[in-house]
């Protein structure tokens, strides 16, 4: 799994590339925690290049989502598809996560 950060205005987009599994999902948590220390306030997690996620990956998403919510900062998860979507659906968390279909929608949602 690779994590890349890019910036769009005040919004930080984290592009996840690869498989989010029990061996590497902690890295997304660590990255977000580091970004929070650096006072980043608006996050987009882009899962376009993720075709595999397991409970550790879902756990990492839950963790960053609840941490960011608690701090009253903003997060959108975007481009969920394929088996990633199915796993989130099985866990019934589609409504729990702030989700948009595309990056453009995510940016618009953060601007609301």
């Amino acid at each position, binding site marked *: 799994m690779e994590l890349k950060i890019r910036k769009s205005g005040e919004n930080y987009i984290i592009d996840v590339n690869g498989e989010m*599994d*029990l*061996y590497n*999902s*902690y890295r997304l*948590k660590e990255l977000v925690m580091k970004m929070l220390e650096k006072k980043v306030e608006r996050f987009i997690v882009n899962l376009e290049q993720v*075709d*595999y*996620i*397991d*409970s*550790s*990956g*879902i*756990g*990492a998403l*839950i963790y960053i989502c*609840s941490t960011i*919510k608690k701090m009253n900062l903003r997060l959108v998860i975007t481009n969920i598809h*394929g*088996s990633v979507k*199915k*796993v989130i659906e*099985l*866990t*019934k*968390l589609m*409504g*729990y996560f702030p989700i948009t279909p595309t990056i453009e929608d995510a940016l618009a949602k953060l601007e609301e």
Partner: protein
Amino acid sequence: MKNENLVEGVLEIRVDENSPLFDRAGMLHKEFPSDFRQIRYFTLLIVQSAPPEIKEINLLEQQISEVIKNAVKHGNRSNPEKKVMVWYEFSPEHAHLIVEDEGQGFKDLEKWNAFNRNRQSCLDKQDYESLSEYVSFRSATSDDNDGGNALFAALEYWDGGFIFNQKRNSVAMLKRFPKRRHGA
């Protein structure tokens, strides 16, 4: 077809030593040491014998990997001396597995069912504020890398039953692949 785990409208993990799902006849068999590093490798060895149409782009693999991870990590506590035994059988219509470890058994089963009931009631009320208390189940062997959500999905996925034996160190599961609700 009724879901074996449906109890009063809520899915529950059940214990039933005599469930027909524990019938190992005709199933393929593999054994692995409880090596945490090799969980995904072992999973691939098993799932590669499934017909392509039921792999559903990684979903079957992911669900099997969760059960094997539970056996390795929570059952055998990643002790490589202890084995995980898997019996499996796939067809275009079904996936049937039995995963057994040499651990103490799933002690928190009742606790998990109670937790899941609360979680389900939050979901029914669409109360996402309270749901945040019930997104991740923790047991004595959980650590930061455990999502604590694998079994929620497992009960939904294994719609033909997800059933433990009396000692609770062996779990049998069945997934049916009926004609889809949508499409041709």
